[in-house]
């Protein structure tokens, strides 16, 4: 187990380095902070001077060497836009995103798994059809639209919840729901189809014939076997929420997390901050993957970790 984890982490490190290099190359190729950060009426000489002070007119190999050297000593550079250490900005925003994402995925699992199980118990029944419709809705509705709709319904019309920002537990409700809804749908569907497969297996009939209580058959034996796909999906949802959907949801709700920060950094062509964000998020993704792999073993001891 120990060797497995170490090997996975080493592989993960390679991924992180590869991703960071790609971001470095792409941002240098495409972006120019001197254009976006200075007023439109600045002259070409002024833009050149600005670029020079930031060290962006040096040859790309020199910039890259500096970058790798700094990275090795843990220096992620100073954010061009925020004018403070890039890593500070990221680490400041990260807990806010975690709060949102972990809560959202937790809700998605806590509601999605029972929903999937109940739907599987009576395929074609009323609950099953409701679950399918809900999931399709979750998959199809764009999150920014859902977020705005929830704001209109609960904040403007019903005046029950705040519209945006962070601060009180009430602020957490709408962004979490918006983030959780698609994940909930997908998890419910995966659990439903895995459970239907399991419940049709021979061992289930045997267990029932033996007189085992139905709850134990379904909740313990069948669910355990069905949970490998669900676990994979949950890991994937967590990663997607962290590295993707958070950008949209945080921007709609002005939630000061990493997604929001990435959106602003892109708008301002802040290459340094983007590099720091991508690095940190890549590390998170690797960690989540390793944890999920270890959890497989806990759920199904037959799996050999390679």
């Amino acid at each position, binding site marked *: 187990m120990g060797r497995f984890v170490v090997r996975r982490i080493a592989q993960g490190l390679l991924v992180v380095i590869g991703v960071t290099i790609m971001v470095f190359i792409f941002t240098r190729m495409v972006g120019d902070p001197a254009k976006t950060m200075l007023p439109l009426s600045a002259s070409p000489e002024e833009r050149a001077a600005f670029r020079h002070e930031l060290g962006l007119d040096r040859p790309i190999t020199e910039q890259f060497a500096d970058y790798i050297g700094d990275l090795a000593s843990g220096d992620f550079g100073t954010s061009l836009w925020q004018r403070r250490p890039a890593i500070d900005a990221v680490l400041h925003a990260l807990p806010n995103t975690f709060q949102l994402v972990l809560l959202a995925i937790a809700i998605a699992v806590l509601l999605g798994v029972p929903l999937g199980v109940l739907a599987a118990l009576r395929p074609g029944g009323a609950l099953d059809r409701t679950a399918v419709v809900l999931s399709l809705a979750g998959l199809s509705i764009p999150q920014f639209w859902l977020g705005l709709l929830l704001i209109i319904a609960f*904040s403007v019309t019903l*005046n029950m919840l705040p*519209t*945006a920002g962070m601060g009180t537990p009430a602020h957490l409700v709408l962004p979490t729901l918006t983030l959780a809804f698609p994940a909930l749908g997908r998890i419910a569907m995966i659990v439903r189809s895995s459970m239907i497969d399991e419940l049709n297996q021979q061992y289930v009939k045997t267990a029932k014939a033996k007189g085992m209580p139905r709850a134990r058959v379904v909740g313990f034996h069948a669910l355990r076997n069905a949970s490998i796909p669900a676990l994979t999906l949950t890991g994937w949802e967590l990663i997607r929420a962290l590295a993707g959907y958070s950008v949209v949801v945080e921007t709609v709700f002005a939630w000061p997390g990493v997604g929001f920060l990435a959106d602003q950094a892109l708008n301002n062509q802040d290459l340094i901050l983007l590099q720091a964000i991508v690095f940190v998020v890549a590390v998170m993704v690797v960690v989540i993957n390793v944890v999920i792999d270890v959890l497989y073993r806990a759920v199904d001891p037959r799996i050999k970790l390679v």
Partner: protein
Amino acid sequence: MRAPRFVAVFAILALLAAACGGGGGGNQSGAASSAITIAIGAEPTTLDPQVRDDGNERAVNDNIYETLMARDPAGELQPGLAAAAPTRKGDESWEFKLRPDVKFSNGEAFNADAVVASVKRVIDPKFNSEQASFFSTITGATKVDDLTVTIETKGPDPLLPSRMYWMKMVPTKYSSEAAFADKPAGTGPYQLKEWSRGNQIVLEPNPNYWGTKPPISQVTYKFVPEGGARMSGLLAGEYDLITNLLPEDVERAPKSAHLQGLEHPMIILNARGGITQDVRVRQALNYAVDKQALATQLFGGLAKVDTCQILSPQMFGYNPQLQPYAYDPAKAKSLLQEAGAVGKQIELVGQTGRWLKDAETIQAVANFWQEAGLKVKVSNYDFDTYLKHLFQQPNRPDSIHVSSSNELLDADRQYSNYYAEGGSGTSNSDPELKRLITEARTNIDEGSRLQQYQEAGKLACDKAYFTFLLNNEDIYGMSERLNWQPRVDAKLLVSGMSTAQS
């Protein structure tokens, strides 16, 4: 678990969430009657007033820091921290007498030393301020006595007083400390009470302010990038003021205010080559567009047709004699026929999202041009690529849409940038136009300088170097209780605001 029990648990969870949220929404600024909340588009990244060119930072810092010269709400230049308008001492130096007995909120005195420090700091190339281009002519400042200071420029600079309306004054000693970016200290009517990053900025009145105490006792800034969410907050009673209200939302806002602003959307036409090299084609492109229809349909009537120039009447250099090109599609067609351009293709470059109704404007103009008989290819880019096209020299796109604004309310910047050859956004090589603008830049005789800009404006109008469009209004959404008249320069000065109760 049986289904009914499961449903019951779900229902309880939902009720809990609602109960928690019940106290959260609603009118938060109702408690203290003269405290207001303003929603701005993004959080300032620093409260150092000299580093960034950021409207959100200005929204906060315009209340904390002040400048030597100021403008009244109608845009007239008047003394601010200076005791009177400056006098010229020779060609390259202006002398300012300062207001006495003014302090920064950290106790440091505002005097000639502070002015010298402020000037030197913002023009220092190592400091790399994004505002440096506004002060490109300033070479330094010298203290004459405690309340007198001269500012030196490279060559004659008639724009200097306007520049000093833009440069914020910072304390001599404290501005070199690291904490300065997080804890501002200015001479203005408000001071920082709290900045909780990611959440809000709160300002309270500065007890040592030299001027009249402002009516609003506390202002909270919230950062909301999504326009729909800002509108929702206004409707829910969470905000007292939001900017950039969409014309179609004006009816739904509890209260709104609008004022002719500094934004002039326009289209730069390439006079150096291609289909637009012929002046008849360029004129046709002006006659073909129904500008009043654009103002009415796209901007809900909240825009004025530009009088063949990209200046607002309050800007120095405005030519009151110019008239817009009429909407005359027949004339447009005949001009195109004369020039042999019917059926040819013209490219219109633009981007989406930066300016109000930019995509809609480009589409509408393209349709008008098509009706006149041209084939229009609309190229919509992301902002960064669009800027490449806007600034690429010397080969210019046929036509490119841009919204021109002018923070210093003086023709120099816009004309230098878009009218005169050598400007980063210029698409013509007219030597007379270039001469007029270059000479006006250093012409200290105000009368003849005004004339030069007016001539330049007329020349560009006659030669149709641009398709002139509109001047937007700045539209603000307000709560019922807020009383405020917007300013021409769009600064959000809280000292000019009051509530029904205060």
